[in-house]
């Protein structure tokens, strides 16, 4: 517990900033570098840092493995669901392709449909990437017995 006091304090300060930065990267990905893949990894890194410093039990209470499992599938379903939705929302009577976001909104001149589509599928990518990274980490870390202090 006590030997890692500095690590605990610093990571307590850093973890919220890491996660907020991850969401910034996610939602600012249209305008600057970033997007769902990077944001997913960064959010997962925040939780992994928490698990490394405070232990697996605490991390599992914060982000339960069941939620991780559902999010993994939910991301892929959201992504594919946007594709199916574009197929169904055949507004203007024209044939629409899978993942053709222009169908999502009638406002063609401002590309609103494209923006909605990109937002939604990036959200799907965020869910899948971050939860898969966490699931992989949980799978590996669940096998490791607690490290003795001399291994730090």
């Amino acid at each position, binding site marked *: 517990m006590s030997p890692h006091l500095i690590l605990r304090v610093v990571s307590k300060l850093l973890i919220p900033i890491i996660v907020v930065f991850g969401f910034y990267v996610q939602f600012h990905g249209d305008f600057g570098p970033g997007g769902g893949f990077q944001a*997913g990894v960064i959010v997962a890194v925040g939780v992994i840092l928490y698990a490394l410093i405070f232990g697996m039990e605490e991390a599992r209470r914060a982000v339960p493995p069941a939620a991780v499992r559902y999010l993994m599938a939910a991301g892929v379903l959201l992504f594919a669901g946007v594709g199916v939705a574009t197929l169904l929302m055949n507004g203007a009577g024209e044939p629409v392709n899978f993942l053709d976001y222009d169908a999502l909104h009638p406002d063609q001149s401002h590309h609103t449909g494209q923006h909605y589509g990109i937002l939604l599928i990036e959200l799907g990518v965020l869910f899948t*990437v971050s939860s898969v990274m966490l699931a992989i980490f949980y799978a590996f870390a669940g096998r490791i017995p607690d490290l003795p202090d001399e291994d730090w």
Partner: protein
Amino acid sequence: MLDILLERFNYIPIIILMMTGLYVVFATGNLVKRLVGLSLFQTSVFLLYITLAKVFGGQPPIIADAHGDDHGAAAAGHGAAEAVLYSNPLPHVLILTAIVVGVATLAVGLALVVRIREAYGSIEDEALNAADYSRDTGAAG
């Protein structure tokens, strides 16, 4: 001939790096180090693709004035084709997803190595071969 190589000098260190990764894969028996070699190789291939996309004097492919919804189309009409050079975005897209897929597949490989360690007690390939082909454990393997 030297001119041709000098114009393409970037490929030579990248090929050396790729071959270094390949060498690690072939020369070591330790499965974890072999996976490290594989990701060394993989990262060097990423470098190869990204150097292909480099344009001298270019900018990162983020267009500054395509931002507003109102004048996006209008600005693009005279903005995009102007003198500003951008690097090629296509290899960036391919490699961006490849990196994340690469770490996911690396995790699968490591999970297999961990299971192999639990089943055999070793991750050196010669020990694994010996365990598989020896007469004592032939039935178990």
